């Protein structure tokens, strides 16, 4: 039973990771990051159920809180960039380089 959850978690994580690497749109990248976080949450909850302890669930809540905070800041940044540069592509925001 645990294995199935974990496989699902791994699949979600991989989808998220590929999305981060392959997609250009900042919003989509952002959602993929959320996907990865939630894949982790799923793994935590699974292990918590398996071991019968609350630690994993606790951490899952922490992750959600952090994710929420991240969304607030991250979306704000993306919106600001879109406003100034008329583009939501992460490849266009490449000024911070060597």
């Amino acid at each position, binding site marked *: 039973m645990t294995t199935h959850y974990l496989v699902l978690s791994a699949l979600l994580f991989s989808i998220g990771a590929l999305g981060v690497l392959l997609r250009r749109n900042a919003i989509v*990248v952002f959602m993929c990051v959320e996907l990865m976080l939630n894949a982790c949450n799923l793994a935590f909850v699974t292990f918590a159920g398996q071991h019968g302890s609350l630690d994993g669930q606790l951490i899952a809540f922490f992750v959600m809180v952090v994710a929420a905070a991240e969304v607030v800041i991250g979306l704000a940044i993306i919106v600001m960039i879109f406003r100034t540069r008329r583009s939501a592509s*992460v*490849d266009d925001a*490449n*000024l*911070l*380089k*060597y």
Partner: protein
Amino acid sequence: MESPVEILTHAGGAIGYSWLMIALPLLGAAILLLGGRRTDRWGHLLGVAMSLAAFAVAVASFVELTGLPEGERRRGVGLFEFIPGMVDLGVLIDPLSISFALLITGVGSLIHIYSIGYMSHDHDRRRFFAYLNLFVAAMLLLVLSDNYLGLFVGWEGVGLASYLLIGFWQFKPSAATAAQKAFIINRVGDFGLLIAMFTIWTTFGSLAFRDLGADVTTQASEGTLTAIGLLLLLGACGKSAQLPLQAWLLDAMEGPTPVSALIHAATMVTAGVYLVVRSGAFFEAAPTAQLVVTIVGVATLLAGAIIGCAKDDIKKGLAGSTMSQIGYMMLGAGLGPAGYAFAIGHLITHGFFKANMFLGAGSVMHAMNDEVDMRRYGGLFSVMKITAVTFIIGYLAIIGFPLLSGYFTKEGIIETAMHEGGPILGWLAVVGAGITGFYMSRMVFMTFFGKRRWADDAHPHESPAVMTWPLIILSIGSVFLGAFLVLGNRFMIFLSPAVGRPAELPEFHFLSVTGLATLALVAAGAAFAWFRYGAAEVPAVAPRGSFLTAFARRDLYGDALNESLFMRPGQWLTRLSVFVDNRGIDGLVNGLAAGIGGTSGRLRRVQTGYARSYALSIFFGAAVVVGALLYVGNM
């Protein structure tokens, strides 16, 4: 054979104050140099006074010394600790040093007086006298010091004075170059003297003459003693312009003529002979070193004589002759106690007659608007009689005209060389005397006799009394001094407490085989000179001459040799080193810095600014870390 006597500590009396000989001229130099223009008006008088005062002290010390019994005639006077635990500076008054002191202060004072006239038109006369006083002080320190280090201080001190005086007219590039050359070549000799002192110190634990008597042989192997002897000889060669360090002396004639007379004829250049005689204990225990001394002496006496034959510049001719005469002294000094007295005796008489001739040459130049080319002289006898007569007396003395000074002392050296050094050395010395007869006669004929070849604006006249009187006094010495010193072995006996003497005192033969041969050769040389330069017309421009003439004119290619052997490779080495330093060592460090800079320049290209490529590298990094953790965990 008799050895030198012990050095006794002395207090009081004139000898107790003999350090004043050094201090007074030094004080004079200090006053004149620090006083600056304020002392211009009386500076020359102060210089002369200090020199005369030193002479007075020397005479008083001499009188006191001769009053002592023969076995106690070496007196040391301690002055102060120079380097604690190594050397105390002190004065040693013995027959050898006092002879030198008398020569230096006596001839030195005459030359001081002469310079008043000679330098009267030079607005830097005060500085000239300051340097002369400095020289006298340093030279006296050289001969009076009771240890090698003090001697060395004086040794380099006279080098400095010589540097300053050769370059006195420093605005002339040739004078500046000559001064520098003299100092540097002397430094090569000083290098030898330095190493000799190191060896003496490590072998004997002392640099004081007092501790380095005849018993040095008991504490060192002959190899060490030979090494010390050869190193000392290197020092002597530098200072005395002996082969192979002779090249500076001819250029040194750039200095004012009184300087040439005092430093480069009468006193400083003979310091090498003093050193060899003073270090007799080492040389007598090292026959190889002695042999080398005699060989150097003979080689130089011939080389100097040959150079003297081809020079048209009167001063350079005299300089060649000086080299040659010092060669005789070296030869004598290399012959052991039998030769010392003749070497030093010849040194003293040479001091008189050579100073006499140099001053005479100066008087001629003074009259001829500083012309030095003898081809522009001729027929000067009638215009400047005193100069001419005194010069001719000096000339007769140097060629060994019977009964004049040079005759006795040079004869003594040649006889002793025959006796102690073998016939080869002896006959070569005779040949040298013959050549001396030629080139000195050539000089006299070209200058004082024959047709007048003067420049149009030359109006020769006799020099003032302040210049002629020193000439007269020196020429009196040139006549009688030799006979006084040599007859009855007076000088040998006087010197013996300081340098020892052979068991059997030599007898002076007036009509020995070598003596007659020498006279014959000298006469032949003089006759040949008369034939070439007296009777015949002397061209005003030097003819090209044969290969041999060119060889002699160019100082036997001494300069060329130095240039190709040392100067060119040295310049090459310098340039290479500067290049290596800028490009090599510094380049290495700068290269390292540039390398680091370049690498970081490449590396920063990784920061593309694309968030997705950063994400990719983060994933790879994470994967590697996880993989590594798994790998390590499974181990």
